[in-house]
């Protein structure tokens, strides 16, 4: 009987002992596999079979000697070897995982068996004292309150260190109102001033200055990178662009002292050509010929790379896009103009010319129109007896568009050649002109979409400088330095003046005076009158190709190196 009991007791004990041994072995086995797998894991993570230094060296050698078949074979072998090694490591990881799983399973089963065979009846001493029940309830309340309080404290601490990272203070608001007409007229919003028509309003700048002795020179500052673009001014900020092969930049200067407030690099724009694939541009056009436009909230700039960049007044980018590198043999030069929340881009090129209208605050394309031949002229925006029109010129025609929807309002084929001058407008008459073509006066009406050609004139015509028109007179300045004043109604020459240097810059009407800066930087100031009267010829001291900005009693002129502020 005793013998029998012994057998009965030794059975479970033996199973327990076997299970324990198996558990120990399985645990050891799993541990070893686990360590190996961890080592393997880090090895696999560290190795990239396609980026081994040896392979890269061989690939570089192949670039230098592309016909070396032996080298190619060597690369293939090394590549195969690296891939094999990588996939072998992956296989080892997977196999190791299975082995470890088996080991752990075996260990768990053994442990389960051990626990089954070592089960004891519940220990009476382990039972809790019933009188502790109420203490436990009290403790529970305490710990729930503690947990809740901890939750509040944790969330308060976390919230104290959490701030909204998205700051839209510098972002434009779609609902923000466009600037009032008064605001626009008080500033210089784009090339040739508000509307792009060359008329400055409510200004009274000096007619004489001297860079040498500083007379009327309020400040002079260096512009970091060169550009043909003209200054644009809003309140106390002046915007310019500059570019070279290394960077395209927008500058903001403080009009009070000429200090550079910020520079925005037009970089990181998808589709933008890399620095070694920039479009070919001529020296007298450059990569930064288009003038920026602003509505006092945002500034939009365009470069010859096709990069259209919108920044806010503090220089933070709002949006940017590349319109495709323009097919332009001199370099894209058409400036931007904005009106009622839209920015217009005259994108005339050898192929696939377009006129774009983008929402200024978002960059979303509002409309686009196909256009004809190439040009270097800029759009002007006029109020034709209550009807807003966007007037463009190209190597073939003058065209008018509805700025809101892009509809072509009228089209007159009256131009020829490589058109640089933009249009001018006054009292129902649009004037266009270009070298080797004619100067044409178009009588337009808000009631009709068929302008009449009032007169044509084909003598001394501009190649870059835009015309300047009033109700009675039209000023045309050529690249050779000849300025003609024509009767706006008849085209009859009122006077002709031959200056020493040619003009790329466009004439600006300031009260009854015309300011026209020549290529050598001499500002020719004459009266807008049927007879010629020179009021002054102050020099800048350096060449100038851009058109100055007139705000208040100041003139902002970009020379080839410096930006000048001239004022009373």
């Amino acid at each position, binding site marked *: 009987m005793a013998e029998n009991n012994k057998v009965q007791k030794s059975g479970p004990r033996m199973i327990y002992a076997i299970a324990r041994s198996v558990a120990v072995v399985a645990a050891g086995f799993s541990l070893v596999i686990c360590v190996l797998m961890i080592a393997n*894991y880090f090895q696999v993570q560290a190795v990239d079979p396609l980026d081994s230094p040896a392979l890269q060296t061989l690939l570089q050698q192949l670039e230098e000697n592309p016909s070396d078949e032996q080298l190619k074979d060597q690369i293939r072998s090394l590549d*195969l070897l690296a*891939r094999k090694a990588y996939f072998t490591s992956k296989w080892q990881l*997977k196999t190791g*995982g*299975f082995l470890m*799983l088996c080991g752990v399973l075996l260990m*768990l089963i053994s*442990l389960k068996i051990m*626990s089954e065979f070592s089960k004891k*009846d*519940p220990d*009476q001493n*382990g*039972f*809790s004292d*019933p*009188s502790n*029940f*109420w203490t*436990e*309830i009290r*403790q*529970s*309340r*305490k*710990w*729930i*309150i*503690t*947990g*809740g309080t*901890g*939750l*509040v404290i944790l*969330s*308060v601490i*976390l*919230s104290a260190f*959490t701030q*909204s*990272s*998205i*700051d*839209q203070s510098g*972002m*434009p608001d*779609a609902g923000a109102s466009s600037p009032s007409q008064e605001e626009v007229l008080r500033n210089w919003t784009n090339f040739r001033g508000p509307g792009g028509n060359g008329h400055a309003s409510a200004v009274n700048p000096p007619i004489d200055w001297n860079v040498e002795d500083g007379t009327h020179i309020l400040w002079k500052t260096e512009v970091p990178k060169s550009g043909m673009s003209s200054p644009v001014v809003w309140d106390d900020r002046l915007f310019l662009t500059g570019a070279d092969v290394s960077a395209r930049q927008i500058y903001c200067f403080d009009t009070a002292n000429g200090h550079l407030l910020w520079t925005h690099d037009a970089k*990181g*724009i*998808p*589709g933008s050509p890399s620095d070694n694939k920039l479009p070919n541009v001529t020296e007298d056009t450059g990569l930064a010929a288009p003038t920026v436009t602003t509505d006092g909230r945002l500034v939009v700039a365009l470069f010859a790379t096709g990069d259209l960049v919108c920044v806010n007044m503090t220089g*933070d*980018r*709002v*949006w*940017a896009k590349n319109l495709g590198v323009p097919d332009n043999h001199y370099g894209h030069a058409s400036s931007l103009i904005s009106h009622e929340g839209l920015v217009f881009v005259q994108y005339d090129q050898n192929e696939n010319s377009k006129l774009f209208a983008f929402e200024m*605050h*978002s*960059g979303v394309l509002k409309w686009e129109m196909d256009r004809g031949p190439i040009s270097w002229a800029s759009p002007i925006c006029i109020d034709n007896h209550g009807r807003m029109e966007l007037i463009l010129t190209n190597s073939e025609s003058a065209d008018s568009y509805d700025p809101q929807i892009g509809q072509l309002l009228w089209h007159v084929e009256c131009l020829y050649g490589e058109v640089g001058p933009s249009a001018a407008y006054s009292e129902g008459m649009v004037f266009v002109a270009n070298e080797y073509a004619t100067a044409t006066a178009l009588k337009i009406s808000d009631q009709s979409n068929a302008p009449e050609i009032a007169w044509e004139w084909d003598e001394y015509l501009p190649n870059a400088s835009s015309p300047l028109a009033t109700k009675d007179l039209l000023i045309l300045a050529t690249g050779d330095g000849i300025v003609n004043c024509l009767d706006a109604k008849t085209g009859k020459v009122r006077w002709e003046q031959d200056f020493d240097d040619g003009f790329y810059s466009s004439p600006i009407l300031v009260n009854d005076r015309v300011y026209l800066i020549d290529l050598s930087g001499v500002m020719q100031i004459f009266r807008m009158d049927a007879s010629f009267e020179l009021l002054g010829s102050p020099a800048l001291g350096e060449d100038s190709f851009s058109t100055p900005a007139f705000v208040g009693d100041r003139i902002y002129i970009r020379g080839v190196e410096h930006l000048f502020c001239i004022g009373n």
Partner: protein
Amino acid sequence: MKKLNINTSRAGLFLILFIVILMIGSSAFTQNRFPKPEFESDYQQSQTTTPDPQAQIYEVMDLFVLFLMLVLATYFAHRKRSRHALFILAIVSVIYFGFWRKGCVCSVGSLQNITLALFDKSFMIPVVVVLFFALPLIFTLFFGRTFCASVCPLGTVQELVLIRPMTLPKWLSRILGLFPYLYLGLTLLFAATGAAFLICRFDPFVAFFRMNGSLDMLILGAFFLVTSTVIGRPYCRFVCPYGVLLGWMSSLSRTHVTITPDECIKCRLCENACPYDAIQKPVPEQNPENRKTGLRRLKMLLLIAPLVILTLGWTFSRLHPLLSRVHYTVRLADQIQREDSGQTDLTTLESQGFRSSGTPTKVLYDEALRIQKQFNIGGWILGGFMGLVIIWQLVGVSIIRHRKDYEIDRFSCVSCARCFNYCPREKNKKKTKVNE
């Protein structure tokens, strides 16, 4: 007793056989998602192929297996009262839903799909996912958490590795017990805003089921598995958000497993049997606290409840910038802003992708701010919910229902049947049955 063991073993064998047949049969539907690269001979550039969608039969099969296992788990827990059968069923669940079906689709995760479908009309939710979400809840409403006992692969894998259970200190259980509610709230918030599927992202066992995963997932899984060997179902008790819903359903359930098959003789043998703290002791007759004090506390709790809810709502709403960063759009907007303001020179693939899309930054920022607003509102709701949970739990330990016997806590009990065998009445009943 022997007869019972034979019966349960047969049931288990049948189940394993069934699964094996199912696996062999379904191999006919498997497809090579990625053809093996061929390096040995002349290399041929393989055609890029799009993997075919999962065969629809799997969905039907998953659903069928889920339903069958729910029925069996309920039968084993309620009628058979067999721990062995439930244990074998748990093994089957881990093999089928875990290792073979790679832990997806699972009822726990389906909570997110349901939430997203409710808040995003463009999100089409498959019927199978809806049923995976609803079936366990329906079963629980009628029979308690039999789903947790042997069907949920996340729960059963912990059940299987539990070797030497130890009881956690009450205070720790109480504090950790708040976390599933928080996790539930966060899960709903992230799913509703389309930010993330939190449960899937932090699924501790899926890496093991798939024998693959990131290092952090493997570490998380290893932590839970090792912990599960001594602490009963740590994920189910202190993390699982679906468990909260199941707990609520179980509290309202029509029937539920009981410790004893008939009447409790207060032998106290089951007192420490449950590794999940789901056995409630009898309430002593003598309450040292007078009734008035208890009532005053209850009134006070109800009075401060709005304050607690509002305080937590406010503090959680203040976290919306932090929480919203889980959303891809908010992270991208932040990255773009840092790039544009010169705070970083490093671009990311996402920011490059965004810029190449031509979408204006303003549009991105507007969207990010809209999402942050959603998180602000969500933060208020989440905090308010947590406040409500705290108040509810405090009320729960302030109103003590009179209880003479050892009873199961319906909310916490996972119907694992572990306690049955501790009950002498159960043993007697089984003996009588065998003798009959």
